[in-house]
């Protein structure tokens, strides 16, 4: 999308990443990066520059892999877009990388030029120039530049130019008003937008891999059903004509189908997993068991589905083929499992587990081995992967009290190593976060 709008001149000098970061490393010491003032000749361009610098600096710091060296320490204060930096000055303040940029006005729009330097090796490792046709795209450009820096230095795919759809909550806990809302991954208030008006309760939104659609559940006329929201048109459409509750929807990796639960009144309202083809409108039933089957999530290659079932007595995690064959239990530990979500890298499954009075969010291999708890608290739910598979977002709810107080629910971000947790700010309470692919 943005690539169509922007004219990007992009030169890569070295295909190898400057810094190898692997998830297995555990806690990573953040890499110091210096970001000069983003220079602008007039008040508008200076303002754009400040905004961009702030976005890039926040993004990189929030990733846990970088920290921005304090500006007060900078010895050289020049614009380093057209000038070779005095690398010794930057080495002295222990900046391992150095980013400099400037903004100017042209007849085509706002021109941004950026240079990224490897200070210790005293060389330029990235440069770009792009033209932003509309001021409203500044935030997205900031995220895109952050992705370029992140990718160039870590060798991993970025995740900054992405959005989070979630459920905004307000009101007493027994009469909660819930609305769909969407924002940039950093939760910046300027990017925040409500998608529904709160008249009907909405739950569990999920992005389509094609970035245009969101599937979710809504109580329209008190009938809980799965819907699709089209971000381009704002249209909402029910998914199929089912005589009972449909819920827990997720898209297939090709965005052509939705896998979800259906509680059929002709089957004692027992929840089974169905696949609904959005083009042909045909549906197929994937599970057939007297237990509850719900929370299906596709593997990124589309061949397998992980889901939640209490067929063995208590809720556990199972994997099956995309047609419902070869059902195997994968959760091995004690406790009540739920919310399984296949990682976009394909190698891990995130889940929630209730044991000894606490919820845990963890990850396990796709065969259930090597279960690791990432975070534990009284109430945690709805893990969702960053598109690069390095981070999770989820919601955390406080205990509530008989007098109606408490119960605050917030959206959190965490590295799957268990480090670097922080709140993603929302104007009201927030739950059920889901991450878009890289835009």
């Amino acid at each position, binding site marked *: 999308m943005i690539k169509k709008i922007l004219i990007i001149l992009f030169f890569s000098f070295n295909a190898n990443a400057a810094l190898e970061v692997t998830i297995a490393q555990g806690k990573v010491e953040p890499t110091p990066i210096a970001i000069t003032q983003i220079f602008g000749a007039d008040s508008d361009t200076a303002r754009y520059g400040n905004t961009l610098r702030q976005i890039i600096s926040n993004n990189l710091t929030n990733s846990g892999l970088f920290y921005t060296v304090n500006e007060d320490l900078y010895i050289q204060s020049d614009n380093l877009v057209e000038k070779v930096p005095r690398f010794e000055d930057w080495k002295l303040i222990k900046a391992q990388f150095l980013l400099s940029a400037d903004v100017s006005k042209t007849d085509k729009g706002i021109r941004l030029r950026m240079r990224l330097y490897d200070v210790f090796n005293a060389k330029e490792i990235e440069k770009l120039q792009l033209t932003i046709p509309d001021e409203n795209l500044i935030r997205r450009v900031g995220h895109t530049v952050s992705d370029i820096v992140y990718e160039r230095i870590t060798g991993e795919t970025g995740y900054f130019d992405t959005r989070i759809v979630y459920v905004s909550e307000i009101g007493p806990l027994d009469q909660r008003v819930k609305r769909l809302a969407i924002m940039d991954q950093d939760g910046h208030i300027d990017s925040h937008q409500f998608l529904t008006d709160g008249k009907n*309760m909405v739950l569990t939104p999920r992005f389509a891999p094609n970035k245009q659609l969101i599937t979710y*559940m809504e109580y329209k006329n008190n009938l809980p059903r799965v819907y699709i929201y089209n971000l381009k048109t704002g249209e909402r459409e029910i998914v199929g004509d089912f005589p009972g509750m449909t819920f827990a929807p997720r898209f297939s990796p090709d965005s052509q189908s939705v896998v979800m*639960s259906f509680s059929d009144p002709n089957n004692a*309202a027992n929840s089974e997993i169905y696949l609904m083809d959005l083009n042909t409108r045909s549906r197929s039933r994937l599970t057939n068991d007297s237990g509850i089957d719900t929370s299906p999530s596709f593997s990124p290659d589309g061949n397998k589905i992980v889901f*939640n079932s209490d067929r063995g007595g208590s*809720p556990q995690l199972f994997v099956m083929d995309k047609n419902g064959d070869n059902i195997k239990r994968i959760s091995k530990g004690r406790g009540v499992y*739920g919310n399984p979500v296949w990682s976009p890298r394909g190698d891990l499954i995130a889940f929630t587990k209730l044991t000894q009075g606490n919820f845990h969010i963890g990850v396990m291999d796709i065969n259930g081995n090597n279960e690791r708890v990432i975070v534990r608290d009284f*109430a945690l739910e709805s893990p969702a992967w960053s598109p690069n598979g390095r981070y999770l977002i989820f919601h955390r709810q406080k205990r509530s009290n008989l007098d109606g107080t408490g119960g605050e629910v917030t959206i959190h971000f965490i590295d799957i190593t268990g480090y670097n947790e922080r709140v993603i700010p929302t104007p009201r309470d927030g739950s059920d976060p889901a991450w878009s692919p890289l835009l």
Partner: protein
Amino acid sequence: MLKKLFMLIVAGFFLASCAATKTEQGGDVDAASASASSSSGGEITAGTQEDLIVNVGDRVFFEFDSSELTVDAQATLDAQAAWLMQYPDTNITVEGHADERGTREYNLALGDKRAFSVYSYLAQAGIDTNRMEYVSWGKERPEVVGSDETAYSQNRRGVTLVSN
């Protein structure tokens, strides 16, 4: 005007519902009944939600992670069926609810099974299914706010609502 009147009636139901809950909790019975009668302005009208709450019981409770009807629940539903027979023009919606100690999606499934347990029990007791609907609210609409077993036991419930 009609709408306003309707709102008042609904408000009355909520008050009555709270009062009934307090009674179940072993609270002040006198205060509860006083509240129930004052909300309707005196006499309870036969065949209404308030009548169901005060004279029959509008809800049944479930064990943790179960949609099976207990002996107590069956007794309440027998009384509800008799009451529904007595007022054949009454239609109902059965709501199934769960406590907060489960995932949202699992609890939606569980709430639907609970609502269906009530619905099908009443159907087997002879209530025409054309008079009944059911819906799951999962853990989204607790009766009692609170993160302890006192609240949870009252939130694992099936509630019969008069819908006309």
